[in-house]
């Protein structure tokens, strides 16, 4: 099927299939799924500027499905999401402006592709290390104290990085706020803004909702419980991807037809993924997340090496 806006030819069922997988994984892990959708579109031969803009559009629709599901499950901290919105929008605009600058020369695919690979590999390596440490720590605790800990609630969420989150929560720059839904008594407004700005920047620059940055940052840096981080991240993705879609569409980087087709598969996948989070505990969700950025990185490497990109 020809997608005239981006000038590409893609099998619509392949797009629906990719959408379904991305939706399923995104709903489960609380990320937009751009670490797979973006590389997949690039692999289909879509020019990088359209990959970034179109991926953002598809993510908006998909995240609405998953966020509504997570809201029903009580996994969204609306106060945190509302504050993060300001940093996110500023970051998205800065990322989109950088794409505009890169569009003027021939290196956009290489620069965005390599940045993507570096980010995805770093996240995967870091989360593997952290989840392994957390599970090891948990096992030692169980061995020391015996049976009762095995029966811990799935909502209890140990992390090997809890001490870093505690330090960031004690950051002194006012104003300070409390986040009762996330169990945080006091945190600087600016810590939240910085984390959301970085997430927004990668959303505007690499496409998608940048949940692969924001979700781990919320858990490890802000100390948000994994289940709340998953739901709130999806809420935030709607804001960042919505704004990103608009600004990229104005700049001619969105093939909405591709996004609509892909989203039909993503909608059902997201619904299933969000329901499945109820059956898994925090560290195990994080551990299962690890291979996904690696797959995304492999697809980008394949796209760059086989010349699937446009100059």
């Amino acid at each position, binding site marked *: 099927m020809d997608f005239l806006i981006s000038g590409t030819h893609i099998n619509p069922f392949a797009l629906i299939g990719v959408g379904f997988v991305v939706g399923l994984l995104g709903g489960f892990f609380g990320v937009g799924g751009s670490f797979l959708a973006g590389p997949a579109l690039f692999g289909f031969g879509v020019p990088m500027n359209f990959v970034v803009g179109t991926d953002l559009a598809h993510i908006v629709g*998909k995240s609405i*499905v998953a966020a509504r*599901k997570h809201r029903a499950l009580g996994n969204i901290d609306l106060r945190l999401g509302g504050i993060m919105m300001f940093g996110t929008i500023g970051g998205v605009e800065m990322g989109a402006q950088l794409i505009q600058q890169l569009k003027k020369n021939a290196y956009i695919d290489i620069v965005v592709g390599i940045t993507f690979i570096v980010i995805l590999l770093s996240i995967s390596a870091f989360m593997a290390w952290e989840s392994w440490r957390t599970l090891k720590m948990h096992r030692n605790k169980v061995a020391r104290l015996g049976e009762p800990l095995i029966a811990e609630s799935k909502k209890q969420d140990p992390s090997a990085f809890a001490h870093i989150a505690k330090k960031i929560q004690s950051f002194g720059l006012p104003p300070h706020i409390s986040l009762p839904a996330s169990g945080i008594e006091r945190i600087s407004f600016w810590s939240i803004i910085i984390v959301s700005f970085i997430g927004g920047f990668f959303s505007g620059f690499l496409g998608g909702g940048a949940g692969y940055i924001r979700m781990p940052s919320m858990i490890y840096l802000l100390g948000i419980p994994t289940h709340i981080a998953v739901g709130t991240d999806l809420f935030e993705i709607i804001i960042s991807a*919505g704004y990103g*879609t608009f600004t990229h569409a104005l700049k*001619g980087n969105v093939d909405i037809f591709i996004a609509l087709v892909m*989203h*039909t598969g993503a909608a059902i996948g997201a619904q299933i993924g969000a*329901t499945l989070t109820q059956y898994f505990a925090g560290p195990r969700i994080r551990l299962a997340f690890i291979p996904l950025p690696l797959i995304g990185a492999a697809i980008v490497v394949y796209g760059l090496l086989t010349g699937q990109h446009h100059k």
Partner: protein
Amino acid sequence: MKPEIKAVFKSFSIELVVYAVLVVGYFFLVLHFLGDWLYHLYHNERKTYAIVALALIIGQGIVLESLTRTLLRLIRRGRED
């Protein structure tokens, strides 16, 4: 596999089949007619295109979410009966 998880997977499988039929119909009927109009907007009225693009994806997100939720509810109710 736990009976509870087995039941969830069964519901999702039925939902998936019904949803696939509905979406393929929607895809060929509705999106086919929008193609030329969107292409025209993209080249001639970029601001309108940006607004329409965002509205379309949000609208589709809400409609499909309602559809998947309704399907799941109907399937669960059918199983309980």
